[in-house]
């Protein structure tokens, strides 16, 4: 006997938006028949707004309720808004789910993510699929990847292997993946800790650190391509730089900034850093 909320019961008794959209702009899937639950979600997107959503679910009461409420949550929202929805939002909208059933809300999130991924990459569907299969499977019993576990930890602040099992099913069958799951949890929180340390840098320490990273890590790389970079100013998390030599005026300079300089600084100093080019 599960203690389902009124909302959950309402949604599995009277599921909303059931079915298929024939000329859908995006389709997402999660789960599988063998694993015991699966979900297919269909989206109609016009001018960046989700104008219609439908679902088909093979699963228990909370799986149907999660899918049903998800379609209600996204219709009328912009794609950007929809991208921000997490499994926790789905569970919250339902008035909560029993811990062992949280994986149903995760399935909703995953199907949505899959749909939006497909929408963004309409031209590159095959590439996307390859990328997906290349993702590291942690739990072979339930086909759960490292990224799925990572997301579940991040969105829900999970701390134990049992939590992970409740949210993603990983570890719930043969159990041989439990060691790997523990490693992922450990890695996540180690990373979070070091990130927390980063953000406690004093402004002076931060300036020194940014300068140091630019000199030792970024500039040598740019010099290899015949360019260079100088630090102009630091204002909070805004890092103003000047690109020189071959880099300046190069039409890839924006990419260089974003993809390389900014990500290096975000990784090593503070994840909120913005790099801005000044003339």
């Amino acid at each position, binding site marked *: 006997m599960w203690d389902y909320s009124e909302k959950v019961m309402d949604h599995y008794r009277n599921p909303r938006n059931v079915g298929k959209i024939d000329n859908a702009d995006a389709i997402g899937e999660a789960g599988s028949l063998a694993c015991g639950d699966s979900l297919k979600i269909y989206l109609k997107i016009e001018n960046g707004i989700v104008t219609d959503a439908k679902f*088909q679910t*093979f699963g228990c009461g909370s799986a149907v309720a999660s899918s049903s409420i998800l379609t209600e949550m996204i219709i009328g929202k912009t794609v950007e808004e929809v991208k921000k929805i997490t499994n926790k939002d789905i569970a919250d909208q339902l008035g909560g789910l029993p811990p062992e059933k949280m994986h149903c809300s995760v399935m909703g999130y995953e199907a949505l993510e899959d749909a939006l991924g497909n929408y963004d990459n309409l031209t590159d569907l095959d590439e996307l699929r390859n990328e997906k299969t290349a993702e590291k499977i942690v739990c072979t019993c339930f086909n759960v990847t490292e990224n799925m576990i990572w997301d579940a930890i991040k969105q829900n602040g999970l701390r134990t292997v049992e939590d992970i099992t409740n949210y993603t099913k990983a570890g719930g069958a043969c159990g041989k993946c439990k060691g790997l799951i523990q490693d992922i949890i450990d890695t996540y929180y180690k990373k979070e800790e070091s990130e927390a340390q980063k953000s406690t840098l004093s402004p002076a320490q931060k300036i020194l650190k940014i300068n140091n990273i630019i000199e030792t890590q970024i500039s040598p790389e740019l010099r290899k391509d015949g360019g260079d970079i100088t630090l102009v100013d630091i204002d909070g998390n805004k890092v103003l730089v000047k690109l020189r030599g071959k880099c300046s005026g190069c039409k890839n300079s924006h990419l260089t900034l974003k993809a390389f300089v900014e990500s290096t600084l975000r990784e090593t100093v503070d994840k909120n850093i913005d790099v801005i080019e000044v003339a």
Partner: protein
Amino acid sequence: MSLIYLDNNATTKVAPEVLEAMMPYFKEEYANPSSIYEFAKNSNHAVRDARGVIKDFINAGNEKEIIFTSCGSESANTAIQGVLNMNKNKRHIITTKVEHPCVLNLYQTLEKQGYKVDYIGVNSNGELDLAQLEEAINYDTALVSVMYANNETGVIFPIEKISEIIKSKNKETKFFVDAVQVAGKIPIDVQAAGIDLLGISGHKFHAPKGVGALYVNSKTLITPLIIGGHQERGKRAGTENVPYIVGMAKAAELASDSLKYELSEVKRLRDKLESGILKKVFNARVNTAISNRVPNTTNIGFEYIEGELILLHLSDLGICASSGSACTSGSLEPSHVLRAMNVPFTAIHGSIRWSLSRYTTEKEIDYVLDVLPGIINKITALSPYQDELENLKKLRS
């Protein structure tokens, strides 16, 4: 809304006669049966008489072979650990892949303690592989442990034949039978079947939860699981649960009287339910249809839909059944029994066990047959596997 209870393999309602028989032992006759004074005579005799009833219920040779316990799980644990403790030189156990968790989990623990355990498989009808069983028995085999009938499928195992096989291979090997799912459904004769130890549980045949019995034949020695006083001839310490023991004995008497009814009427209603569902629901399949089943049980898989959702919709109409699906249990894996039978994964998550009792009426079965197709259609319409369902429909029509 009236209740339609079709989950009698999980537990049963207490028969009114049983409750009535128990009441005096809650009220006036509260004496400890071991006490010396006259006041204790009635409770003492009540336990003695109950032992006689249970002896007859399973056709044991002697009352001394009956031990009262607190449940089926305790009976199994006492039997298994008791036999192994008395045979410390033997380190091999044989059981089946489809035992109840109270037995399976114990064997997994024993494996960690160094025992070698062989798990005998079943075929797609849920029948035991006797050749594999015979093969497995060797000089080191302390115990063979086989349930009398499976709780999920109702399939009855050939206990007498298994006993013959065991005795022909190793006369010292003991035979424990978990008979929790057959007591009150088919006759039990421990002597004719050649059983050394046998466990039953009251709440599966209209006694209350929390009382059971273990038969240990006079040639078999066991150590007690619960150590303490001299009760149950040193085999199970603890002041006897007099009202519950009386209740279980009353339930055994009632069950013996209605065995004929079980085998004819309950079976007829079960068959009606089974064939009715198969006829009315195109994506239904019976997970085993063999005739050698307890008369009250059928297990039916609904393809491409999930069991918990079926149960929730049934529950909305007051109908209680249970499912082999993982989602109802909090575990994430579907039934180990259906997996051992290789039930196709299209049906395993949507499998429902229906278990009747002598209180089940024809009207109730008709009602279920009336409303179930609508529920299944509603859930099937949600399934992402519409193409597969369409093919199945063509195939079955």
